[in-house]
Structure formats: C-alpha cells, structure tokens
C-alpha cells in the first residue's frame, strides 16, 4: 500500500474538521458534558452500596456513552464522504498521486483519533463521579472502542457509498445505527428479548461491540471476548469489500 501523503492529508483533514462550527464542540465537548451531567444527576441520588449493584450506571452508561461517540463519528464520516463526493472534492483528490485508499484511510484516522480523545476526556471527567476503587482499564477500553469504531466506520462507508446525496447520509445512518443499539443487549439482555429481536440482535455488529466494551470495562481479559473481536473484524471485512465494489467517486 502506497501511503504517500497520508500523514499530511490526515493532519489537514483534522484541522479542517476542528474548524467546522460544530467540529470540536459536537464531537468532544457535548458528549463529555452530557456524560458528566448524567453522572451528576443520577450518581448523586445513589448511595455507594446501590452503585455497586446498579449494573447500568456501573457498566451500561460508560458503554452507551462510548457507543454514542462511535456512532456520531460514523454519521459524521458518512456525511463528510458524501459531501466531498457531491462537491467534486473526492474527484479532485483522486486526480493526484494520492491512492484512493489513502484518502479514505485519512478520514478513518481522523475519526478514530477524535473518538479516542473524547473517550479519554470523558473518563478523566467521569472519575469524579464514580466510586473510588473502580479500576477502569483505560488503555484496553480505548483499544476496544477503537476496534469497535473502526468496524462501525465500515458500515458508515457502506452508507456513504450508497446514499444518493449528502442530505441522506445522516438520516439513513441514524435509521440504521440507532435501532441496532436497542437490540444490542445494552438496555435489556439479549436473552429477555422476543425471539425475533434476539435473532436480529445476534446478527447486529453493535451487539458484539457492546459485549466487548462492557466486558473490557469490567476488567475481563481479551481472551474472553475473541468472538466479539472476530465478529467486528468480519463486519469490517464484509462492509469494506462491498463498499469497494459500489463506492462512487463522483
């Protein structure tokens, strides 16, 4: 793979993204703010003994917050790619020595970097609202989130490849991704879902992301979640392969 220009392009795209009116605010500040406010509002009303047993606040909330960060990255990627296509920017970039994969990789890297940054800020801010003594494996969790985001980004690419215009990218993406969260087992365990929804949940990549993120947050070893990782990698491979076939540059 010829990656000439990858770092320059990634750096330029990162700067451009942060110049967007909602760039840094939307991806970093707002998720962290929501998380902190939620933690404050819910956390204060619970006494420490309740906290230990409250599965959702303990594991679910961080996982949900991380998932929302990932999904917002994916929607933003799908939108940017379709805007770039509509404006002829992709075509202009392709008429340079940049390889097509380099152009797309730069965008993925920007999104992963922002996801990881948001997460780190969130964990630091959240430490105040979580009981002392909870050892969150920040590094492993970040890695798990990057793997999950990478995988879901490939769904974003598939959306960007198929939507007719940029205006559709955001709503189509939201319609596909948010219901996935509902059947992912995050709010209601898969086992308690009706059979049809359970089956849907089993084939949804977000289910595996939730399982991976929740497990790593609780301190599970990676070996306990290899099926989750495998499912996410499979999603990435399949979506990327389809995108490569149907992707339009103009």
């Amino acid at each position, binding site marked *: 793979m010829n990656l*000439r*220009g990858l770092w*320059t*392009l990634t750096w*330029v*795209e990162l*700067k*451009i993204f942060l*110049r*967007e009116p909602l760039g840094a605010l939307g991806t970093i500040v707002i998720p962290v703010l929501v998380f902190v406010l939620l933690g404050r509002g819910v956390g204060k009303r619970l006494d420490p003994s309740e906290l230990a047993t409250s599965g959702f606040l303990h594991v679910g909330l961080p996982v949900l917050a991380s998932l929302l960060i990932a999904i917002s990255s994916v929607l933003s990627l799908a939108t940017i790619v379709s805007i*770039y296509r509509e*404006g*002829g*920017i992709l*075509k*202009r970039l*392709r*008429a*340079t*020595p*940049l390889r097509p994969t380099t152009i797309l990789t730069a965008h993925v890297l920007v999104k992963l970097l922002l996801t990881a940054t948001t997460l780190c800020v969130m964990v630091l801010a959240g430490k105040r609202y979580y009981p002392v003594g909870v050892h969150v494996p920040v590094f492993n969790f970040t890695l798990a989130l990057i793997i999950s985001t990478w995988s879901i980004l490939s769904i974003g690419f598939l959306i960007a490849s198929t939507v007719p215009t940029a205006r559709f990218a955001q709503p189509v993406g939201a319609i596909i991704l948010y219901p996935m969260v509902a059947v992912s087992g995050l709010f209601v365990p898969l086992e308690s879902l009706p059979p049809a929804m359970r089956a849907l949940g089993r084939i949804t990549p977000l289910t595996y992301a939730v399982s991976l993120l929740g497990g790593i947050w609780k301190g599970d070893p990676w070996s306990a979640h290899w099926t989750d990782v495998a499912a996410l990698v499979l999603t990435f491979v399949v979506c990327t392969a389809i995108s490569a076939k149907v992707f339009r540059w103009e």
Partner: protein
Amino acid sequence: MLRHLVSTVKDAVESDAADMSTRPVIQVSGIRKTYSSTVAVDEVSFEVIDGEIFGLIGPNGAGKTTTMECIEGLRRPDHGTISVLGLDPFRQVYELQPRIGIQLQQAQLQKRIKVWEALSLWASLYGKKSEDGELLLKQLGLAEKRNTWFMDLSGGQKQRLFIALALINDPALVFLDELTTGLDPQSRRVIWDLVRGIRERGKTVFLTTHLMEEAERLCDRVAIMERGRIIDIDTPARLVTRHCPERTVIIGLDDPSAEETFRKVPQVEEVTRSDLGFTIRGRGEDLVSDLIRCISENRMRVTNFRTIIPNLEDVFLKVTGHSIRD
C-alpha cells in the same frame, strides 16, 4: 555506398529535428465512450503537439470533458487508444500523474482548507518543497490570500488556486477544463494571461471551452467537437478561412457612381447602397486589399471603412448548422 550511408544518416538527423518541433505529446486514436445508451465520445482521433495551446471547443454536452478525462486517465474509453507523453493514461496512471497538471471542471476543495495548506498538501504529494507553492502563490497573485479558507475565495481566486495546484509539480502538460466558465470578463482576461504564461514556460496546454472568444484568443489550434465527434481541427484563422471565406466591407462614400466601380473588383459578389455609403460582400482573403487599392486608384473620398470578418462563432454555426449558444 558510403555516400548513400551518409545521406541516410543525414536524413535521419533531419527528420529527428523535424520531429522535435512537431512531437505529439497526446495521441488519441479512435476512442469511444458510452454511458448506458448515450454515446458521449464517438470515434475521436487527434494529436496535441509539444508546446502548443490546444483547445477542444463545442457546446455543453458535446463530450469535451469526457474526452479530456479519458486522456487524464480518470475514465477508461470503451475502445480506442490514447498515448500521453508515451504512456497509457489508464494503465500507467501513477507514472503519468507526476508529469501532468490537472484542473477539473466544477471541482471544489474542502470548504475550510486554507490556500497555503492546499498548496503544501499538493507539494508533498508530488515530492516538492512548500517553497515552490509559495512562489506560485506570488506569481498567481494569491500571496495575500494564503491564510484564507477556500470557501471565502472569489470565483477567479478559486480558479487561480486550481491553476497553482495544476502547476505545482512543474508538469510538461497541463489540462484545463472550462477554466473561465462563470467568471466575469476581467477575471477571464487575467486567467488568459496566466495560460499564455504557462505556454511561455515551454509547457503544453490542453483546454476545453465553450467560449469561442476564449478559443480564438488563446489557442494555437482548436478542435471543434459536437455530439461526441470532432468536426474539424486547425488554427482558428485557417478554420475561418476554410469555412467562412465571406468578407463584408462597409464603405462610407457619398458618390452613387462608385457602385459600378466596386462591382468590377474581383471577388465582389454583392454591392448594396444605403444612406451612408455601400455594403460590399464578397469572399476570399484578397477582397479587402483589392477594395483598398480600388479606392486609392480612383481617389475616392471615403469617410468610413469597416470590415466584418467572420470568427470561430460563425465557423461553428456553419459546420454544425446551429449556434453554440443553442
């Protein structure tokens, strides 16, 4: 035997020298490109010679951009062959790219990319130094816009930036697709001077335009394209001579008897009188000088002398049967 050998060598040297001045940098032969049921480019063949400004002219939808994008390696023709600087633009696109500069029709950059960032990105892609970009900015009059976002540039400034990006790798061949479309006449003139400047640097320019005035003022040779086909190729002047030999001369003269004198001038076909003088129609390059001679030999007191010479727009009307604006 020896003399024969010497003369062969001499011939070879001479033909080499001849090749140098008319060396084709683009050779297109028999290309065709269809989109589902529409034939965009239909059996097109032509050559572009080293160091010239070559224009592909025709109305919107004639197939100019498709032809250009096939040559740039961005599209693959259904059949036919293309050679650009000796390379196959589709198969050897990565070898070709460092040697050509491209400006695309209606292209955009990222809204919030700064002028200098775009140039420095492009410079790094072609392995050039950022200083090369700064120099181009100065030459194209964009130096004080270097920190401006792309979205805040005017149409003319955007086009100048695209020219800078097309020149950053010091290419031997530059493609300009509808470069001045949408620009006001003043910005257009600035761009024309820049394009002439590209030729002065010894580069070849291949451009498309639907503005006949642009083609006439800028191009060394033009190819007239319509409905996917090339109708004729030559210098603008020769195209006019070939397709529109008609000349009209308006002479201000208050002397009814001159009518008969004018009629005797060779190549004059029609003389009509009006209040202010005569309108004389004829054909051929010599008509104007013959009329001037006639006026001076007969010591006519002429108060006005105006020639109406056809231009590329008339040529287009003649060869296609309709105006380019239709």
